[in-house]
Every structure is written in structure tokens, then in C-alpha cells.
């Protein structure tokens, strides 16, 4: 009896998945809104501000690039730097995409998500990794939370969710220079972050997302546009980040606007 129930449930799941895949193919705003409900809304306003605690909620997020990491134990500094230094798509450190922009990437193949497992399907050790070409889309999104739930972004759009890399970028617009601020990031899991093209954080280890888990050296947000870019890589389990700027006493820095490009 239990077994038959399980089978029914699996069938139901497959149906849900099929619907999601179809929805994603259309890729219209409405569908994305529905798919990411509870976590993100498509951007509809020209600019946003940081929230009351200074968190940056408006982001351009690229659909995940597959990079199977079967455990969270692999995220040493070297591994993180090496794998997040690979050029996955052109101008990945400079591009300011628009909503719906497409990116062609070559990435390691992993079988479709197995919902009974929290791990990317491991390929047999002796096999060479198989690479596939994929076209991924940038999405302009406002997070419903202080954090950016990358896992739900991937899940909602029915993409690989474990062992993936998320590229995210946003633009900080300042009326005047703001000196001696620090980028404060909580990250699940490994990540690299840049402010105006300068690497300011490398986050290694099996880490959880905590507010102000790691902060950068002092940077200056200059008058005008500042580009904040992060790339986050997960293994099994969740993936998410939160980011804000803080001052030397740990207080959030606000007083700027956020746009997608």
C-alpha cells in the first residue's frame, strides 16, 4: 500500500515537473513570477533601495551553470578560486546584462535532479566528465527576503539545483562617494565577490549563510554607478546569499539606489 502510494506520488511529481518545464520554455514574466512565488518577483520598478537593514534585494541572476560537487567538503580556497575563475561565458566579469539576455555556456553534464537525493548525481570515477552546451537566461528579480534564495531560483525554474554555479550582478548608484564601506556577505556556499571589478571576497569552506559572515576590506562606493558582482557555488543542500554594505562600526550603509544595469 505504501509502495503504490509512492508510485502515485512520483507520477504526480513528474506531472508537476512537466508543467514547470513548459512554463519555463515560454519564459514570460508572468510565468517566472508564478514559478518563483514566495521568494522573488520580477523587477517592475526603475530602481530600488536597500532594505531597512541595508540588504540588497535587487539582482540580475543567471540560470545555474552545472558544476557537480558531490560534497561540501571540496570547497577549499584553492578549489573555490580555481573553479570560480573558469571562463564560463564571455565577459563574465564585466557584463551588465538585461532581463531576458541569453548566455551560451559549456558545462559539465549532470542527470536530471533526483528528488530522493540531495546530491548531484555522481558520475562513475573512471568516466570522463561529459560537457554539454546550454543557453541560460538572465532574470531581473527583487527578492522577497533579505536573502537571495538561489536554490529556489533554480528549483522554481526547474534547473539543476545541486552542484551548480550562480552568477549574480547588480548596480549600486551613489550620489556622492561613500568611503570606507565594506561588503558584508553571508553565503551558502563558496563564492567570489567583486566591487567595480576588484575582487573583495573569496569565501571558501562548508559555510552557512549568516548575516555579515564575511566582510571585505574597506572600499569606496564612488559617485555614480558601482558594479557589485558575486558568483556562488553549491554542492548538496541549499544555496543562498545575503549582501549589504556596512561601516567600520558594523552599521548598515544605505543612501544609494539599486538598478539592474
Amino acid at each position, binding site marked *: 500500500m505504501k509502495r503504490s502510494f509512492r508510485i502515485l506520488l512520483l507520477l504526480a511529481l513528474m506531472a508537476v515537473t512537466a508543467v514547470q518545464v513548459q512554463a519555463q520554455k515560454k519564459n514570460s514574466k508572468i510565468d517566472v513570477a508564478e514559478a518563483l512565488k514566495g521568494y522573488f518577483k520580477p523587477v517592475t520598478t526603475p530602481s530600488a533601495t536597500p532594505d531597512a537593514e541595508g540588504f540588497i534585494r535587487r539582482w540580475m541572476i543567471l540560470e545555474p551553470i552545472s558544476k557537480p560537487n558531490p560534497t561540501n567538503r571540496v570547497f*577549499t580556497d584553492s578549489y573555490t578560486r580555481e573553479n570560480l575563475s573558469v571562463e564560463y561565458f564571455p565577459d563574465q566579469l564585466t557584463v551588465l546584462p538585461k532581463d531576458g539576455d541569453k548566455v551560451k555556456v559549456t558545462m559539465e553534464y549532470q542527470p536530471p535532479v533526483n528528488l530522493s537525493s540531495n546530491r548531484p548525481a555522481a558520475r562513475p570515477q573512471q568516466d570522463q566528465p561529459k560537457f554539454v552546451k546550454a543557453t541560460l537566461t538572465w532574470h531581473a528579480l527583487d527578492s522577497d527576503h533579505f536573502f537571495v534564495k538561489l536554490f529556489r531560483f533554480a528549483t522554481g525554474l526547474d534547473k539543476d539545483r545541486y552542484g551548480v554555479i550562480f552568477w549574480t550582478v547588480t548596480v549600486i548608484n551613489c550620489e556622492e562617494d561613500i568611503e570606507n564601506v*565594506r561588503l558584508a556577505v553571508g553565503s551558502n556556499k563558496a563564492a567570489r565577490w567583486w566591487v567595480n571589478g576588484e575582487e573583495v571576497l573569496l*569565501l*571558501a*569552506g562548508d559555510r552557512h549563510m*549568516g548575516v555579515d*559572515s*564575511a566582510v571585505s*576590506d574597506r572600499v569606496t562606493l564612488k559617485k555614480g554607478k558601482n558594479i557589485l558582482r558575486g558568483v556562488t557555488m553549491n554542492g548538496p543542500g541549499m544555496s543562498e546569499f545575503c549582501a549589504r554594505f556596512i561601516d*567600520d562600526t558594523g552599521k548598515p550603509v544605505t543612501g544609494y539606489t539599486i538598478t539592474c544595469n
Partner: protein
Amino acid sequence: MKRIVFICILLLTGVSLHAQTGAPYIHDPSSIVKSDGKYFTFGTGGGGLISEDGWSWHSGAVRPGGGAAPDAIKIGDRYLIIYGTTGGGMGGGHASKIMTMWNKTLDPDSPDFAYSEPVMVCESLVDEDFNAIDPGVLLDPTTGRLWLTCGTYFGHIRQVELDPKTGFRVEGNEAIDVGRNMEASTMMYRDGWYYLLGTHGTCCDGVNSTYNIVVGRSRNVNGPFIDNVGRSMIQGGGKSVVTTEGRLVGPGHFGRYIEEEGVEKMSFHWEADMDQSGRSVLAIRPLLWKDGWPVAGEAFREGTYEIQSVRSGYALELEVDFIRAQGAMRGLGRGNEPQPNVVLEEQKLEDVAGTWPEGVIGARNGYYMGRPWQRWSVIPVPEAGGYLGGPYYKIVIAGTDRALAANDKAEVETVPAFTGAPEQLWRIDQLTDGTYRIMPKSIPGHDEPYALVSLGDCSPTLAPFDFKSDNSKWDFRCYSPVK
């Protein structure tokens, strides 16, 4: 925790760094007072000690009047010096006088250096249960009133009120008995409580002295001062503050020095320092507070430590790869399947040091795992000078010369070799809550007195010290050495 017990192997190198350096020989030191950028303390007999940095002390202070056990306090822009004219019956009987005098500076080289004519503020007669010596003063921060206590084992400790403008006894003031059978009394105020400190035990017997500092407290400046088991100081009560510690024997003559919120020191003498011929020496220790009681902190000990951020509990470490050690998960087996027990080796420096870069390596905080990149040797550098109560330290990865350093961005990093540069020297102060502040001697290109601060869990930096925030605080955890 009454005492912070370091479970630690000491690596002391010849010189005793438990005591102040220089020639810190003094008996019955007054509270330490700062004047003209220098530190001063006066002792029994005449004269006293001066220190430019609070760590290296030498004689040279000038106090006329002789007698015993002076105290000193800064009131407004003047210094009030108080002393007893004879000491402990040595003058023949117990008649004595407490005298006060003013000076605009304590620096004998200053043109302003001139003591006012001493005036008598309290007196004991030959035949009463009181001996007017060992004065201590408190300027009550809540009322601005100036209180003096004095007395010895010969009868009572008495409290009188002085006029903080003149240093004279307040007219019509009646002395109050506040304690009994102690010496070296002084008072302090903190957080709604008044404290009366004194000593019990024998002074002046070198390494056999049993002198020790005790305290009682009261909500009222006039007492009664009650100890931890409910006894009044006038009943002979007193809670221990500090007693003999190994080779440092017989603490007495407490004085409190507040550097800033959360950073306090206590000064006193050891009757005998067994590393300095058994002579009486000045001591300066962190003053801690626990459950409303003063507690003596320990002199910082050279050793190998985990340096733990109080913010996150993470350990200061090199920004290097986590190298996995031998010993994977042994299944979830709770079973008692017979298998021989194996003692695993801890990861050693040589197992991992080859994977580290050669130049500058950043510093961060990470989960403490007892690994070589998290083990810091904290070693005094006495020739580099000091600060009130301690020498500067170098902080190096244990077994290497890789040193923690401030850089010109006011950030913290490690350099491959310790050079003695001021940005590689660290001041370590134990705070009133028992945690530590760690500050570089200087930061290249910066004048701000920044301390080591965790603004993020994983991110040590240099930023303003804030006692109210755990971001500014660190613990030194000392574990048994690798077997």
C-alpha cells in the same frame, strides 16, 4: 570564573615577565597617576617610581615628608598626595598623622613642580584603637565628594571626608569606623556599589609575607562594607581579590587605574618577587569584574594559543587551504563491534606548511579545528617597550616566524618573517569581563588607535575598539600541547 585558569605549558625564557621591568622596586605603592604623559607611583620612605610607558619603571619620583604608604589622586588639573607620618608602630607607638599636599605636576623636571605645605587631615593618639597611616582616597563620581580611609591592624579603619577643593578635612566631619584589622585600605566605586579594599596577613617578611588583598562592598559610601559570605569588614570580613601566586608572594596596597570603559588595571606590590632576589616590587594586573566583585586578572603568559573571536567563536587563522587530516567518519556505528583502538596523530606543521604561499598571507577567522594554521605563539618582545602593565608581543604561527601584522590599509595580514616593525607588535589587554583586546603598536599610515575587530564572523580587521560589542573582544585559549 574567579580565576582564569590557563591550562598551559609555559615557555618562559629566562626573564620573568610577570613583573614590571626596569627597577620596579617599591613598597606600599600609591595608586598610579598619570602626569605629563608619564606614570607615577609613590612608596614608603620617600620618592617613588616613574615610567614613560607604564611597563618599564625606574626611581625618580619626588615626594617630601617621608613616612609611609602614600596615595595620590588627580583632582581637576592638580594632584593631591596623601601620606602618613609614621608607620605601623615603628615610630614608637601608634600616634600618627595623615597629611595632604598639592602639586600642579608630578614631574620633578617640570617648572611647575612645587608641593604645597602639607596639612593634617586625620590623627591617631598613642593610646586609641586606631593608627592613622596607610591612607587611600576616593573621589565619588556620583557626588563629587572626597573620602579618605586609613588605619592598620592596630584597631579600626576610619573614614573621613576631605574637601576636594582644598584637600582639608571637611569642617565638622566625624570619622566613621568602616573596617577592622586590615591595612592599606582604599575605596572605589562602580555601578552603584562602593568598595572598601584592604590587606590581611603579614607584610614586610619577604618571601614569608602572607599579605593578601581583600574587599567588601556597600550601596552606601559610608558602609557597612559586606563580604561574599555576609560579614562586615568591621567584623573582620573580606573577600579575596588576590593572594600569593607561585613565585610572587604577598600582594598588598591595591590601587585602581581606569584606562577607558572596559579596560582597567590594578596596581599593588608583591612583598617578594622570587625572580628578583625576593624584593618588593610594583605589580600591575588587569582588573576584572565578576558578579559585582573585583577580580585580579592574570599577567598574560607566553604560550601557544587559539585566538578566538568572541563575536563568532571562530579562531584567527591563515587564509590557506583546509588540508584534511587522516581519520574519516567511522560510520554512524554506535556498535561495540570489537576493533582495536587507534590513537591518531594530530596534524603537524610539517604536514601542511609546504602548501602555504611564501609571501604575505591574509588572516581570517574560521572554525577552530586545532590545526597548524590556527595555532599562534604569543611571545613578548621586551626590548620593544610596553604599555601600562605589559610588554608588546609578537604573534606568530607556532613553529614559524610568520607574524601577524597591520598593513597600510588598516587591515590585518601575516608576513613571512617577524622584523620587529611596530605594525608587527601587539598590545594585549585583558578586559574587565575577562576577554581580551588586541591592538597593533602602530598601523602604517594611520594614527587611529584601532584594535583587532571582527566586523564579520570570518573577517578580522582593524577598527575602533568598542567594549560594548563582542566584535572587539578575543579569548586566548590554551590547550595541552601536542603529545
